[in-house]
């Protein structure tokens, strides 16, 4: 059941009618049941895993909260961390690490045979384990009070709008919203509609229309591609992944708003970033801030000098890459982002200068273009099946400048579908008001929504695509 399917909207319509009629406590119970139905629609067996993770974290948080001994609290917290990471490790990384171990031992002349697991990766596992972990860690850090009622916590962990692809919420911010009665303010419907409309536009119109171009380029033998085709394929993927993921987050935010919840912003025009640190303040904000708060700072952050800060940055980004999946390309992707962060820092990024002049438009545009292309290089690492493919495509990119009909077609498609969004985001970026559209005159808003609806009605591709981040 995905957001760009009719079944989801039928499910949501039925759910919403009942939900709005229920009192607060029953709303949470109904939300819980519906979230498990939503999740079980993929595979009912996944629900067991979700329930197990929730039970463990409920008991752990309760124990931590009741204990005064710091050592004991830490030990109990470890149970939660180990359980959640073990689940992730088992389903997501076991095959990868066992294969690599066998290869490494074979390199040493030792022949070892390890069993391979033939299991499906539960949808959204990385998202809800991180959200669940944030709960126990926040309780440990005394930033959040544990839920008294198990069902409230279960509703928080399994909240269906953001269950399978985030944003990864923090218990300190999000759990209280489950514990207090919903408040529906005037304008909430409007904000929700804005998120849903923009999200569907990004996903269905932009991402799904560009997906076939990126898929073709990345599925072909690099030797058969020209440099221009590789470049167009990377551009197509850069825009596809952004619109796919931010589209999902936006729809989740909109639906949650209609249900009376505030989800955090997960994307803030990331391709307008001027540096890596700026990019990570705008891209997958819930994960980057999670990694910052629970990993980077725990490693020491920038508290022990530059050298250790660079080390911490690289470790954090490396693990961030691995979070996406068990593949060397993801590891190198994370490493690449870590390295460019360090390089930018060495070049002076992040230093606070007093009386510093604001960046000129020309310089800003140049910095944006550089940053966008650095991110594009990282997308090549992210999307390629393996590192030799990355290498081959990179060689093509810099040695073959032949412009083919397919490259022109791909570029035409990229421009046709992404320019309206680019213009819209530039206006938002300039205004610094993410909800600008909800504040303009209703006639103008109707025009924009009419355009979005028209595009959805006419330009939806023949084949809808599953959200990319579901696999993580």
């Amino acid at each position, binding site marked *: 059941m995905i957001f760009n399917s*009719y079944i989801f909207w*039928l499910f949501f319509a039925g759910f919403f009618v009942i939900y709005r009629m229920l009192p607060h406590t029953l709303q949470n119970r109904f939300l819980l049941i519906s979230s498990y139905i939503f999740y079980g629609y993929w595979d009912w067996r996944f629900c067991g895993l979700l329930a197990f993770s929730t039970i463990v974290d409920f008991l752990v948080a309760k124990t931590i909260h009741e204990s005064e001994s710091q050592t004991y609290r830490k030990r109990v917290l470890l149970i939660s961390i180990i359980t959640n990471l073990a689940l992730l490790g088992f389903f997501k990384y076991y095959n990868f690490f066992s294969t690599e171990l066998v290869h490494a031992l074979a390199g040493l002349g030792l022949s070892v045979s390890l069993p391979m697991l033939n299991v499906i990766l539960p949808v959204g596992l990385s998202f809800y384990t991180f959200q669940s972990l944030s709960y126990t860690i926040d309780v440990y850090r005394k930033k959040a009070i544990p839920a008294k009622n198990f069902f409230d916590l279960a509703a928080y962990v399994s909240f269906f709008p953001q269950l399978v692809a985030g944003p990864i919420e923090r218990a300190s911010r999000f759990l209280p919203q489950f514990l207090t009665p919903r408040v529906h303010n*005037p*304008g909430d419907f*409007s904000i929700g509609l804005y998120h849903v409309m923009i999200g569907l536009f990004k996903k269905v119109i932009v991402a799904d229309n560009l997906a076939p171009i990126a898929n*073709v380029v990345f599925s072909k033998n690099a030797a058969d591609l020209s440099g221009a085709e590789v470049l167009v394929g990377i551009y197509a993927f850069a825009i596809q992944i952004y619109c796919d993921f931010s589209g999902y987050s936006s729809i989740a935010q909109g639906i949650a708003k209609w249900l009376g919840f505030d989800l955090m912003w997960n994307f803030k025009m990331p391709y307008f970033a001027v540096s890596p640190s700026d990019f990570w303040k705008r891209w997958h904000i819930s994960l980057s801030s999670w990694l910052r708060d629970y990993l980077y700072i725990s490693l020491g952050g920038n508290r022990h000098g530059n050298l250790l800060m660079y080390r911490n940055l690289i470790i954090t980004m490396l693990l961030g890459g691995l979070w996406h999946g068990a593949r060397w390309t993801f590891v190198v992707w994370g490493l690449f982002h870590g390295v460019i962060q360090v390089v930018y820092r060495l070049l002076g990024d992040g230093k606070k200068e007093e009386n510093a002049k604001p960046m000129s438009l020309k310089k800003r545009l140049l910095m944006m273009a550089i940053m966008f292309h650095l991110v594009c290089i990282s997308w090549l690492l992210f999307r390629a099946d393996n590192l030799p493919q990355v290498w081959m495509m990179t060689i093509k990119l810099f040695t073959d400048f032949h412009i083919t009909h397919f490259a022109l077609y791909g570029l035409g*498609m990229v421009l046709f579908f992404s320019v309206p969004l680019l213009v819209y985001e530039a206006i938002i970026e300039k205004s610094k008001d993410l909800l600008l559209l909800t504040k303009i005159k*209703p006639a103008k808003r109707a*025009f924009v929504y009419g355009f979005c609806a028209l595009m959805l009605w006419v330009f939806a591709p023949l084949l809808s695509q599953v959200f990319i981040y579901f696999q993580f």
Partner: protein
Amino acid sequence: MLQSDKSRKADIFILLGTLCVMAALEIIFRANQSRVSGDLKHLQDIPEISKRIGEAKGTAILFMGNSLIGEAIDKETIKAGLLCDTTKPMVIEKVVPDGTQLPDWYFIFKNRLAGAGRSPDVIIIGFAWKNALQDGGEVSTRIINFACRFNDIADLSRFGIRGPERTSEFFLSKLSSVFANHSIIRNRVLDIMVPYYREGTQFVNTASKSHVQTPKTEPQPAYSMLSRLFQMIAFHNIKSVFLAMPVVEPYTINPALIELISKNGVFLDCRDVPGLEKNMFVDPIHLGKAGQALFSRYLAERLRNIISPCSSARPGLPSAFLRNDKS
């Protein structure tokens, strides 16, 4: 005025505004759809074709399928090849909407051809490839809009075309011509806006198909929709002929399909037409002018043994194929 009232009014205004934009598009499209594409014009012409068949004095032959047979048939060559006496009346028509398959033909026949006055005497359906005519195909949205009725959802469900996605698409296609024909509008606009759009799309489609993994064990093919079509054809006393069409790459046909067709009508294997060369195709499936002429002559020759107006008791059909005259 309270803030909540103001906000609610604005929301209603926006929703209505959005609906108005969509309604305006729907009205504009409905008024101009035959100008949007030749294929839509062809669909719009089907009632007229049905009328011509109904008013035919002599034998009425209907070719049905998609562009595969549409491009391969020259009506005049067929007519000349079939008639011994060219003064005798014979009506030959083609209903060949692009990219259609059995479920589309089924509903066009059921709701737009059969029962609309006099039915054709002979229906000739052209198909190709291994999986043609078996269950599992889907009705295209534009055919749902053009040929289906709301209660056809039950028929679709019986043939395994069900589920919330399909059902929603069915109702939306019935309600909105823009939705039903969105791929045509989309292609039309992108063809203008994007360089090498057709070439690029063809390339993407071919590349995507080559990456689709076929299951190791294919399920046994079922032909319940085809059987139902045969029942309808028999009910209207129409003679059916099924043509396995020539294409560039050779293909096989399931023996069970040949058996089913032969039991209910006539199977003509035209996969290998003498003299038809690869250079007579304009692409892997469509015949060019020379190919069309050669194929039409060949087909007329083969059809003559089946539809022989010269030996017919009634103009147009041999006595063995005569149906009970409804009049």
